[in-house]
């Protein structure tokens, strides 16, 4: 028989007495997911009459909204409502901002847009396609402002300011000092520094955001289903924004969620927005984010500019660190930011024993998508600087990078170890982990491969990284952004409440509920193992529910799926809850079996006497007793129907008066090394071998731990080699499709060699630590170190785009052959399109001049022009429908002429807008007689194109510009008397309007 019967998750090993925890049993989640039976948010039905929303988003990085005309959209059949900022403001209030400053943070633009993709209007209609039809009919008038996209440039005086409440775009600045860094730097023989720019990227789950919201006007209560991941501290933010107490916001999550990696925390502003739409329409409203929206405007990790300096002894020992971090949180400081910057605060010395630390933290706002949770959360940014610096120290001192790492590692005998900045590292043996990795991962062999490759003239390098991976965040770490005085005033915040409920039903079967909101990690399986062990049952006997319903379930602000808290905190709490029930069951069984409770053991479905295993009673019988015969329970037993445990580790204290903060409960250790080869022709980086050693404490499910490591590794590889949310200097977003934001696929991701060591955490019930985020912290910098080693270069920027590496290693380019250079438009680094050219036109300059100023002529030579309106002699408007190939769109263009010097020269300035984007440009045209009765026309231009077309068609923008120029010139020359169309041509109308009609996409 080809197909075998479905095996229950644990039918193997039934006779085995080993605990279930620690085994790679098959997942209970999988049968449904593999058969199309998953229940993701968009798989679930909705109430009859549910409306569908789409969101009109800003094409501009920074602009004032002068007006929004929604009338045509509202008139379209099927449209129930169109909400603008004002409508949302009428029923909500601003989202709270994480620093003390007079700024607001709305889920939709009020009178100004601050990033490409910021919501401007919400259209609610009977179906999504109609809502999108209507959105195209909304006419928004913008007045563009200058944009800032670079975190350091944002701080320069005189640049555009995003929020008046953040003067100079600075949202927060704090300085910290631990030990005596000044003295250490003064006395150290060496000082090394590194400047790094960590790029923007995101773990981009394949399932996008989804929200279904309804409003009960009678009780003024909201009910929301969203694939939100937590932390549920955000529930308070949402309720406050919706102006209801927490008990009137029922927030539920669907049974399955298609990946999150932090990203789905960022759905919360849309919960407010869609809930507002539900309130306004009086109907349930559903919104499923599409991929273009997700890439452009969901959320991003922070990009960061860091200067890190180290005081170093001659042997490579790091004596002090001096951090200067400028964190770019995008256009709004959305909760819980600036948490990305402070999540690592206790861990700024990494895996190293460094007692003197100085930190300057600045948080800036720029015209980019607001940031939020993302796998690794602050770790990649910190370790990229720290571990690049360690390599630099080694190179500068002529030492082996691995020797510098091992010289600085925290000593195994010192755990729990308090770092200079306040983290209490729970356990570990870093030296042993490194030694095992070097041996098991065959470092010597890798070095031999490098030597051999180099001897053959190949580009081969080795990189190393040592990383401490924090997990189970202290809910109080973010208050480190406040001064001690501000914290005293606000009251202490700390802890990390985890929640688990174990229930026994009237037939004695076991149900577990946790507020962990998994997004694919298999929590249900692991919890069934944990609880089965406590009760002496099999995992299949335990049913686990991980959906959350804030109206009915036990939860707290720390609930959710983030900071790698499941194994360490949630699974441990489930164990505690089960043990509490088991303790009572033991007392009941003891009375029935006439033994002491201490003699009771749970095994193989029975509750039995340890000394006399034949003296036993079926688990289900004892378990059901509370339901059927509470009167027969011993007096001290209490009920065994349901037990909820809240657990928070005492180690997670608030920041102290000196700003020391134990920012996380657990600290795993990772040591990675890798060999890479770089192709001399293409400069593509190929990973030859990647070794990753993990100590994440007790391993609950080896298959899932390795799954987390592989998944994190693949995302980190993406961050290192491919992925960047790229912005132009004008704030245009350039990577709006999955053909531009490049995720690694099977042909790019090798299998890492994974090794483990288990040093249990003394602080968690199961000894487990988090493991999900470590490679996102270690792998990008490990690969960068290897590439730096291969190329022998000092500065490496991620992602490792081959063309960027070419700039680092290739010398001067062969010059073009004499006289052969072309005059293609040059795209500057700022992405403005600049160009110049000339052409011959039959007809005298006076004739050409008249044509340029004549609406009728213009109308006839601009392709697709329906109408030219002469507003004044030197000011024109035009309606054009333009297309290149199948791409077409309607545009409104507006052009003014300046500096007229008839018939010799004129400057044109103007812009065009349409559904696909906008353009603005300035150009100068000069006309001169060619001596044969014709005209020599010369032009130069400078144009910028933005909006949808720049996000999804950037690859083709410049080429299309040339197409348009050519088309216009052909028509102009023909009109002017049949001149040849040689060379180039120029029309601002055409350029402005038509260039905005490009496309992107993929075969």
């Amino acid at each position, binding site marked *: 028989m080809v197909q075998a019967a479905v095996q229950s998750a644990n039918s193997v090993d039934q006779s085995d007495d080993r605990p279930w925890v620690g085994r790679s049993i098959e997942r209970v989640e999988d049968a449904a997911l593999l058969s199309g039976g998953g229940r993701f948010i968009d798989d679930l039905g909705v109430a009859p009459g549910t409306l569908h929303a789409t969101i009109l988003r800003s094409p501009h990085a920074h602009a004032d909204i002068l007006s929004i005309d929604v009338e045509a959209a509202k008139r379209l059949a099927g449209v129930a409502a169109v909400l603008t900022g004002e409508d949302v403001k009428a029923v909500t209030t601003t989202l709270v901002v994480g620093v003390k400053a007079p700024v607001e943070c709305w889920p939709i633009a009020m009178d100004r847009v601050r990033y490409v993709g910021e919501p401007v209007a919400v259209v609610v209609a009977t179906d999504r*396609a109609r809502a*999108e039809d209507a959105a195209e009919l909304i006419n928004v008038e913008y007045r563009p402002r200058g944009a800032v996209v670079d975190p350091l440039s944002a701080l320069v005086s005189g640049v555009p300011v995003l929020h008046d409440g953040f003067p100079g775009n600075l949202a927060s600045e704090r300085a910290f000092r631990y030990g005596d860094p000044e003295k250490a730097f003064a006395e150290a023989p060496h000082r090394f520094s590194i400047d790094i720019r960590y790029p923007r990227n995101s773990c981009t789950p394949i399932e996008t955001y989804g929200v279904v919201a309804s409003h009960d006007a009678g009780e003024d209560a909201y009910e929301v289903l969203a694939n939100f991941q937590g932390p549920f501290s955000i529930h308070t933010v949402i309720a406050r924004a919706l102006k209801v107490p927490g008990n009137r916001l029922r927030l539920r999550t669907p049974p399955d969620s298609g990946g999150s990696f932090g990203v789905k925390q960022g759905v919360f502003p849309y919960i407010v927005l869609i809930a507002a739409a539900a309130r306004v329409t009086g109907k349930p409203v559903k919104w499923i984010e599409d991929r273009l929206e997700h890439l452009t405007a969901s959320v991003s990790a922070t990009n960061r500019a860091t200067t890190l300096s180290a005081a170093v002894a001659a042997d490579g020992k790091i004596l002090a660190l001096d951090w200067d971090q400028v964190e770019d949180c995008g256009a709004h400081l959305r909760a819980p930011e600036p948490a990305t910057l402070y999540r690592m605060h206790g861990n700024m010395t990494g895996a190293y024993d460094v007692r003197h630390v100085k930190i300057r933290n600045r948080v800036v706002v720029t015209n980019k998508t607001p940031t939020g949770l993302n796998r690794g959360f602050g770790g990649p940014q910190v370790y990229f600087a720290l571990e690049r610096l360690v390599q630099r120290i080694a190179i500068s001192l002529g030492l082996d990078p691995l020797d510098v790492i091992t010289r600085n590692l925290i000593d195994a005998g010192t755990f729990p170890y308090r770092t200079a900045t306040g983290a209490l590292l729970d356990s570990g043996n870093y030296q042993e982990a490194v030694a095992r990795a070097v041996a098991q991962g065959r470092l010597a062999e890798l070095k031999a491969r490098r030597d051999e490759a180099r001897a053959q003239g190949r580009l081969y390098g080795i990189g190393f990284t040592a990383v401490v991976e924090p997990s189970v965040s202290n809910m109080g770490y973010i208050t480190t952004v406040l001064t001690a005085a501000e914290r005293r005033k606000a009251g202490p915040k700390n802890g990390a409440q985890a929640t688990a409920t174990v229930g026994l039903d009237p037939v004695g079967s076991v149900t577990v509920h946790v507020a962990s909101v998994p997004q694919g990690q298999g929590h249900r399986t692991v919890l069934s193992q944990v609880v089965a062990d406590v009760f002496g049952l099999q995992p299949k006997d335990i049913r686990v529910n991980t959906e959350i319903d804030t109206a009915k379930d036990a939860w707290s602000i720390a609930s959710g799926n983030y900071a790698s808290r499941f194994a360490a905190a949630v699974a441990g709490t489930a164990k505690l809850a089960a043990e509490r029930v088991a303790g009572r069951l033991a007392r009941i069984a003891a009375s029935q079996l006439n033994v002491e409770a201490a003699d009771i053991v749970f095994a193989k479905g029975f509750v039995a006497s340890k000394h006399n295993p034949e003296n036993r009673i079926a688990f289900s019988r004892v378990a059901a007793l509370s339901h059927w015969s509470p009167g027969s329970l011993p007096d001290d037993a209490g009920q065994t129907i349901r037990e909820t445990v809240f657990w928070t580790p005492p180690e997670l204290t608030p920041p102290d008066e000196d700003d020391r903060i134990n920012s996380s409960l657990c600290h795993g250790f990772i040591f990675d090394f890798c060999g890479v080869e770089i192709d001399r*022709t293409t400069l593509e980086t190929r990973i030859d071998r990647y070794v990753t050693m993990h100590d994440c404490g007790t391993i609950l499910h080896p298959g899932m731990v390795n799954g987390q490591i592989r998944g994190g590794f693949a995302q980190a590889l993406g961050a290192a080699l491919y992925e960047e949310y790229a912005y132009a200097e004008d704030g245009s977003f350039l*990577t709006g499709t999955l053909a531009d934001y490049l995720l690694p696929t099977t042909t790019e991701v090798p299998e890492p060699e994974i090794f483990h060591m288990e040093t249990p955490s003394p602080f968690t019930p199961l000894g487990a630590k988090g493991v999900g985020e470590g490679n996102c912290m270690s792998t990008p910098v490990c690969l960068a170190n290897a590439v730096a080693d291969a190329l022998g270069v000092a500065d490496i920027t991620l992602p490792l785009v081959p063309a960027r590496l070419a700039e680092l290693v290739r010398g001067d380019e062969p010059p073009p052959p004499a006289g052969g250079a072309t005059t293609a438009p040059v795209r500057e680094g700022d992405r403005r399109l600049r160009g110049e050219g000339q052409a011959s036109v039959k007809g005298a300059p006076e004739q050409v001049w008249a044509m340029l100023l004549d609406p009728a002529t213009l109308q006839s030579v601009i392709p697709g022009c329906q109408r030219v309106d002469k507003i004044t002699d030197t000011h024109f408007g035009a309606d054009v429908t333009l297309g*290149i190939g*199948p791409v077409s769109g309607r545009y409104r263009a507006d052009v003014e002429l300046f500096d007229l010097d008839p018939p010799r020269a004129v400057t044109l300035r103007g812009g065009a807008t349409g559904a696909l984007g906008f353009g603005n440009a300035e150009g100068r045209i000069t006309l001169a007689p060619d001596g044969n009765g014709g005209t020599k026309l010369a032009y130069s231009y400078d144009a910028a194109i933005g909006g949808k077309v720049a996000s999804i068609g950037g690859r*083709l923008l410049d080429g*299309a510009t*040339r197409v348009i120029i050519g088309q216009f010139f052909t028509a102009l020359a023909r009109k002017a008397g049949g001149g040849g169309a040689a060379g180039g041509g120029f029309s601002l109308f055409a350029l402005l309007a038509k260039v905005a009609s490009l496309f992107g996409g993929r075969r």
Partner: protein
Amino acid sequence: MKPPAFDYLRAESIGDVLDGLAQQGGDARVLAGGQSLMAMLNMRLAKPKLLIDIMRLEELRKIQRKGDTVIIGAGVRQADLLAWPDLVDALPLVALALPWVGHMQTRSRGTICGSLAHADPSAEMPLTLVALGGEVLLRNAKRRRRVAAKDFFAGMMLTARSDDELIEGISLPVIKGSRAAFREVARRHGDFAIVACAAMKTSTGVRLAVGGVADVPTARDWPRLEGSALDDALNAFAYELGARDDVHATARYRRDLVRMIGRDLIGEVLQ
């Protein structure tokens, strides 16, 4: 990301297609594999009033070898051609280039002619057509015409096809004893080419065709060149293509690849 509204015409004859094109002109689009067009519709970049589905027309789904030419119909999917038993023998360059087109999941639906109609300057099929010097077979309600590859591609996403014309197929020459080489550099496997090069030995020397750099795939014929003469020719060609920067590569990087890969491929086909 839902398409705008359009009429859908399931053509049952070529006459249906030509009538539809004649009536609707530029507002009609032919739907063949749809692997580019549908993405553009979902993004609302394209807004045709009418889609004409030609994939039920058996007469367009033929691959015919006639003497020293191969005729490939408009309905022939990329996977169909890859599976054609004569492919390696008759069209070795196509056999090399086709696996680079998208992914197996898109080649199974995407058509050869659809890719040509789309005229993306980075796509492999337009490059191959130009490298081989093939012809595009166009037809409207009144007449048929053939357009040489080099005249067909008029610019980025622009072709010599008139709004009322259907690409009925293409004609590719079978070049006896020709040695061909193809190489492509993209960020990831299956992505649009940053640079794609095709080289062929010709009766007088060698031909190199380059995609991904200029607005249209561009071919250049040289006599047998060697050493610095070849380097100079490649350098001049690299500059003439007018490479530009984008988020995936710089103009300089593209020129480097043209020079280096061009030299490698020419070496391969001439050895």
